[in-house]
């Protein structure tokens, strides 16, 4: 460990988005305590802040590529991921307003926790050092635990929180073990340092393998990859629906990036030999398992949870052969997933009046006509999830499969499409329930507000527009990341 760089202003400046968001969260919290009557403002305001930060970080040159002595970095990849995280946070915040109002829940803490969680995610995405990674992970996890159980009056919500918490704590112990082993074997916790040390031949390869494996499993858990997925349906089902729009997207996205980093380190350090097979195995398990399990769900949220598991499987496909060109598919897929999943959960949040009960798909029967706008947006989300053009979901699938094919993993692509076929069944089920079944029951007392609609519209429009014109996005990624 070198004796370290002094704390520089430039380094602090590179924490701009985190500082802004975190600070804003504190302001919200204070405001909530001081002026409770303004509680309807917090969520839209926070969303606006998120959007503002999202716009702000697009400005060039405010952050150095690497700061705090190589603890965090700021690259186009991180930027893109940060945008995804901020986007899903904004959508979640917007969609939550109606839910929280309907359920009589406080908004200040909610907004603050969500913003802090976003901060944690940004750190997670940026961290290139294992301890920072671990703390960021814990930071965001704490927020997630609290938010999952935010609806304290609901048995389901608290149960979801406890389950998520126990799983998370258990897994974080393993992650920490992994960190410890890597630290012990290489003497450093910086990823680059680890790679260099390993390339230099230090450390026991088996122990290092175990260390990396534990980390990968840990972040696989966060991504809800089979076989580390079991928590996600339970948690999604119990947690507040609009929050799941965030929970199901942002942590997965950041963890995926961490996974990319870890795999990149592993690859450059040349430790262990069958990481590719490992990822391929996880991908296949997730695609097949997720889709099979989603197929038999009657609860919309659980179905979406399993679908999310399956999507993480698709996402892993490019990581089988991790390299520069694996990033665009992953990032685009994440963006697509963020938009369509957030859209879907936002609609769920708006359409299901009884938060403490199951969200049966059958309840939506015929509501496509009662709620033409929401129905249409949900349909768009479903089609995008199913990978039907011209949606961003399709573009994502296309890139993922294309990557697989370019690297000779045709079998993986074929498994992927077979799983997609199963996937189409349950996504379509939502569509047909919406439009093809006669209405069986009138909705309960719903609250469909402007912000919710805005979130849904943004998600659906984004899915479609980027699906039709993905060119700019892909060009940008290619230029920024320098994929071949």
């Amino acid at each position, binding site marked *: *460990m*070198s*004796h*370290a*760089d*002094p*704390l520089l202003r430039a380094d602090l400046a590179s924490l701009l988005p985190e500082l802004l968001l*975190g600070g804003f969260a*504190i302001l919200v*919290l204070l405001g909530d305590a001081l002026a409770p009557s303004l509680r309807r403002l917090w969520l839209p305001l926070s969303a606006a802040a998120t959007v503002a930060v999202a716009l702000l970080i697009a400005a060039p040159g405010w952050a150095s590529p690497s700061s*705090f*002595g190589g*603890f*965090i970095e700021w690259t186009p990849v991180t930027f893109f991921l940060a945008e995804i995280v901020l986007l899903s946070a904004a959508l979640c915040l917007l969609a939550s307003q109606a839910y929280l109002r309907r359920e*009589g*829940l*406080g908004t200040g*803490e909610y907004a*603050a*926790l969500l913003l*802090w969680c976003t*901060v*944690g995610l940004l*750190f997670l995405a940026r961290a290139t*050092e294992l*301890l*920072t990674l671990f*703390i*960021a992970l*814990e*930071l965001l996890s*704490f*927020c997630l*635990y*609290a938010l999952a*159980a*935010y609806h*304290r*009056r*609901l*048995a389901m919500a608290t149960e979801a*929180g406890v389950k998520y918490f126990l799983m998370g704590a258990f897994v974080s112990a393993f992650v920490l073990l992994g960190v410890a082993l890597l630290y012990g*074997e290489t003497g450093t916790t910086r990823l680059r340092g680890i790679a260099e040390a390993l390339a230099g031949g230090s450390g*026991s390869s*088996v*122990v290092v393998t*175990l260390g990396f494996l534990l980390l990968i499993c840990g972040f696989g858990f966060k991504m809800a990859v089979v076989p580390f997925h079991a928590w996600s349906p339970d948690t999604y089902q119990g947690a507040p629906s609009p929050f799941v729009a965030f929970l199901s997207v942002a942590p997965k996205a950041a963890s995926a990036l961490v996974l990319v980093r870890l795999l990149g380190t592993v690859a450059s350090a040349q430790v262990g030999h069958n990481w590719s097979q490992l990822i391929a195995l996880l991908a296949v398990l997730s695609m097949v398992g997720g889709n099979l399990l989603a197929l*038999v*769900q*009657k*609860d919309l949220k*659980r179905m979406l949870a399993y679908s999310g598991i399956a999507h993480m499987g698709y996402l892993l496909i490019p990581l089988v052969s991790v390299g520069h060109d694996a990033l665009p598919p992953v990032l685009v897929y994440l963006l697509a997933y963020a938009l369509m999943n957030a859209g879907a959960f936002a609609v769920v949040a708006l359409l299901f009046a009884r938060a403490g*009960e*199951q969200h*049966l*798909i*059958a309840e939506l029967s015929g509501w496509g006509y009662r709620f033409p706008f929401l129905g249409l947006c949900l349909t768009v989300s479903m089609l995008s999830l199913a990978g039907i053009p011209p949606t961003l979901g399709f573009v994502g699938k296309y890139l993922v499969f294309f990557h697989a094919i370019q690297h000779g993993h045709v079998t993986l692509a074929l498994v992927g499409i077979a799983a997609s076929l199963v996937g189409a069944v349950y996504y379509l*089920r939502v569509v047909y329930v919406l439009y093809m079944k006669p209405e069986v029951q009138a909705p309960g007392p719903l609250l469909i507000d402007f912000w919710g609609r805005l979130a849904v519209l943004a998600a659906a429009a984004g899915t479609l527009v980027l699906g039709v014109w993905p060119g700019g996005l892909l060009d940008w990624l290619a230029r920024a990341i320098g994929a071949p």
Partner: protein
Amino acid sequence: MEVAVFVTFALLAVAFAIVVVAHPHPVKSTMSMVVVLFCLAVLFTMLGAPMIAALQVLVYTGAILVLFLFVIMLLNVGRERAPVVDRPAQRWVALVAAAFFAGFLGMLLWRTHGPDTLEPLTPDYLSIHRLSWELFTTWILPFELVGLLLLVAVVAAYVLARAPRPGEVPPAPPAEVDAAAGPKPARAAAGSHP
């Protein structure tokens, strides 16, 4: 001498660790945990980390475990009524897996670091001054993060455990919600597949 101390505290730690996980009464578990942590603190000292040892005793034993005790008492958690586990498979698989894991990891570490010899402890290594220098320069970012983390923890704990505010809908009456009485598995629920 050192070996004797190590063996004593190690055995103690293991023994009480077993008590922690095996004792049916949470209070006893927690108290055993105190012993374990104390033993570990001793070992930390032996490893040249007196600062950590002190923190261990202060933070862990002094704060965290007391918190545990408070909560246990608050919730009035008694002995586990049923046998420790109700599904033998879970227990046996867990035991075998853990044993395997311990054996494997232990063997691995033993094999890897068995021959390693330790440098004698240097003052530098023991220096708390240097440690804090490290903490506030190299590790400043995690340090800041941990600050936020603690804030989050406070808020989160408050959000979760606070009493309902005036005007807020109170929690549902505490009812013994049994899993069996919960929502039926969706398979059995109404709705049809094509």
